[in-house]
């Protein structure tokens, strides 16, 4: 019986590229989740992740600036 894409990723055959990717450290369950989405949804998720990282970086910069000011004033 032919295996589905998800089966191929979740239980890769030895010697397959999917098996090699898993051995390399790729989390194939993330691919399974992504393949359930449309390309549009995947790229929108990417955009949200970008905004999240940007916010994190801004927050980190703000915190550092605040710490620097506190140090200068003490």
């Amino acid at each position: 019986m032919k295996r589905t894409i998800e089966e191929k990723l979740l239980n890769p055959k030895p010697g397959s590229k999917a098996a090699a990717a898993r051995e390399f450290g790729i989390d194939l369950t993330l691919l399974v989740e992504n393949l359930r989405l449309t390309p549009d949804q995947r790229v929108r998720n990417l955009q949200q992740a970008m905004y999240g990282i940007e916010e994190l970086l801004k927050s980190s910069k703000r915190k550092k600036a605040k710490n620097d000011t506190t140090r200068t004033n003490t």
Partner: protein
Amino acid sequence: MIQLEPILKSLTAVEVEFVIIGGVAITAHGSAYLTQDLDFCYSRTNGNLEKIVTALSEFSPRFRGFPDNLPFVFDISTLRNGTNFTFRTNIGDVDLLGEVAGVGNYKDVFENSECKELFGFQVRVLTIEGLIRAKRAAGRTKDLLVLPELEALFEVLNDEED
């Protein structure tokens, strides 16, 4: 971080001939890869260069890494004087490639692309096979790191496992 929707809206509004390559293309195919910019391959016809200038000017592109106080004009002459560009815009970083190592010029890239709907716009995206060739040819560590994932995707989506 690039804001994808406004730039895709602008590029498609004036019908720029372009193919999305790089991280956004990789994500569109299902990879969990994270990127910060938009890379696209573009046709170098004069008409298309004019369209690119029209589409991107509103985002004030400048060469990435150049001092802010250096004068810079983004026009068709700028694009004629080079092939591959890395720009910083007020909505994020954009790389324009006239040629893609491992794939070729715009015509070759277009032939290795497929249509996808992103943010409601119909755009061309380099195929997984094309991305694998491009990443192999680029050969940098960050390119090679994504290869196992792309190869796995290509294998399962093209039924090449058995």
